């Protein structure tokens, strides 16, 4: 086994490594900790990207660089995929892929017909990956290290859920500094939360965006508040289950509180959403909006999330924007959307099998693709099966 002896150079190499380690320690301790270099450019310049459809109509603004194939679902449920990006002008153009089918709800004649009290033992878990995110008008700054205003918004969300009898748990662990490593640290928080609070109904990571104020301003029930963006990770076994919850939340909010949900963004990260089915990331407003506006929408979101997960009856508001009602609603009276129509949402456990099934299928496909790749690069078939199923005795 030890067929090749080490050479004398090894000793020198050891010294070199030692010297390298000292340099690393010195360099790393000099790196400023409360700032990261990646995404903060938008704070210094109005550098956000604007997304247009193919006819040149403005769709949305993003506080980030846009890339080809990014996916976006607008407030009126239109699904787009970015087809080209003009980096110089910070403009992106998106191809319309079709309308998203949001779940439909059963019409309820009698409002007193509340669904039977649902079992609310399954907990809703909340944490904030970017624990320094703050709201300038209320907090006076964009970031308060480890104690960002985002925790106050998460707290409002949690309290509103608890008032509805839900076992909601907020973990206020700091994951600073605000960088990509924060997801490595918040992953640990998410796992801790899940371990301690089984069974879990849903997991939410609360953020705030960094686009200009107007992109998140809204009025719901005549009250000024912030819109909410839902972010879903693109590639993991829970995507369909997460998407189903996101669509259901949007469907309820569009009826009960039109204007509350800004849009759904399908991102390239995982955001720890592969840890548990029904994990979502919410962006409550932007750094330029007041914290109070975000807290107000957090309370409305709690009501929507409660109905989406545990079921319940809700009143539909008069649609301010009838664009959202273009979808065929065969089961319902097609004559003009009546005011104050009431609907019943069923608990999520009754309609979630599809997402779970697709998730399992996703894993099987991923395993199959892995096996094929391995087969293609492997030297022999035996080695392939050994690699996947463990080595077996053979002659």
């Amino acid at each position, binding site marked *: *086994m030890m*067929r090749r002896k*080490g*050479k004398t150079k*090894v000793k020198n*190499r*050891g010294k*070199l490594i030692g010297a*390298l380690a000292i340099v690393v*320690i010195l*360099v*790393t*301790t000099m*790196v400023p*900790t*409360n700032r*990261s270099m*990646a*995404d903060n450019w938008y704070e210094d310049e109005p550098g956000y990207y604007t997304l247009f459809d193919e006819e040149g109509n403005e769709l949305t603004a*993003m506080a*980030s660089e846009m890339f080809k194939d990014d996916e976006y679902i607008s407030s009126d449920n239109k699904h787009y995929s970015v087809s080209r990006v003009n980096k110089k002008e910070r403009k992106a153009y998106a191809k319309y892929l079709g309308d998203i089918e949001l779940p439909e709800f059963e019409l309820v004649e009698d409002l007193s017909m509340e669904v039977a009290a649902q079992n609310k033992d*399954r907990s809703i878990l909340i944490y904030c990956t970017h624990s320094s995110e703050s709201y300038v008008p209320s907090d006076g700054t964009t970031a308060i290290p*480890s104690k960002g205003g985002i925790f106050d918004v998460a707290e409002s969300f949690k309290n509103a859920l608890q008032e509805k009898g839900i076992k909601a748990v907020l973990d206020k*662990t*700091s994951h600073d*500094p605000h*960088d*990509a*490593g924060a*997801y*490595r*640290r918040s*992953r*640990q928080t*998410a*796992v801790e939360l899940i*371990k301690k609070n089984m*069974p879990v109904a849903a997991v939410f990571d609360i*953020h705030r*965006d960094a686009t200009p104020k107007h992109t998140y301003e809204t009025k719901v029930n005549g009250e000024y508040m912030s819109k909410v963006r839902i972010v879903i990770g693109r590639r993991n076994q829970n995507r369909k289950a997460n998407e189903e919850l996101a669509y259901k939340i949007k469907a309820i909010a569009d009826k009960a509180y039109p204007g509350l949900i800004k849009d759904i963004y399908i*991102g*390239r990260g*995982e*955001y720890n959403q592969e840890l*548990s*089915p029904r994990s979502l990331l919410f962006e409550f407003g932007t750094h330029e909006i007041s914290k109070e506006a975000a807290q107000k929408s957090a309370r409305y979101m709690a009501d929507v999330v409660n109905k989406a997960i545990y079921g319940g009856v809700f009143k539909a508001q008069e649609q301010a924007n009838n664009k959202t009602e273009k979808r065929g609603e065969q089961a319902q009276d097609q004559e003009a959307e009546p005011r104050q129509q009431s609907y019943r949402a069923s608990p999520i456990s009754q309609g*979630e*099998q599809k997402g779970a099934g697709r998730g*399992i299928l996703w*894993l099987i496909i991923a395993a199959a693709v892995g096996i094929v*790749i*391995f087969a293609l*690069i492997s*030297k022999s078939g035996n080695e392939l099966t050994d690699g*996947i199923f*463990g*080595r*077996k*005795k053979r*002659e």
Partner: protein
Amino acid sequence: MSLGMTLLVVVGILFLFGIGHSVLDRMGLNDKAALLFMVGILVGSLVPNIPLSRRLSINIGGAIIPLILAIYVFTKAGTGKEKARSIAASILAGIGVFVASRLLPHEPETMLIDPNYVYGIIAGVIAYLFGRSRRASFIAGIVGVLLADIAQGVINYMNNLPTPVRLGGAGAVDAVVISGFLAVLLAEIVGEIREKIQGGTEKKNMGYDKGEFIRLVDFDDEKEGEDEGEKQR
């Protein structure tokens, strides 16, 4: 949780278990040892973190067992050169992970790839360039992330940031474990492709390791008499 969701979670765990077991197998651990370590990682993940100080703790499945594995693999390294390369790759991977954490886009909408996967890729690339072996990749993947976490902890302490350092805190799904296993898979894929290009079937009893084609022999065969069937790798 409904049956569908429970099945999804169970299949997910089995999927990870399969990948983990096959990775350990490729590093030359026999079936039993690989199984034992995988079970250790999973069971160790369920045990609460062991507190080392007020803001420092360590997880059994996410850090202690992977570290034991890394040390075990290190002691079995073929040559002194490979050992030195493993150490160098670990330190460089640590720097890589630390720097990547700071430089990668971190707003949800700006990410090109999940940061938790980048660490394994960084460690894998660095380890492959330096160590050119699965073992070095594994060691660099594990130790690199731990070193980056410790460095961040030191900086946080100096800056009075209350962020806890929970080494391997997410257990089996911690960046430490993901990085170690992903680094091996990367080395495996690159190694196999190079092996195929350079050697083809003529060298089926040889492997591309430590920068050259050598005759590979299982380093733990001697201990496990019953594995007489796997003499050559």
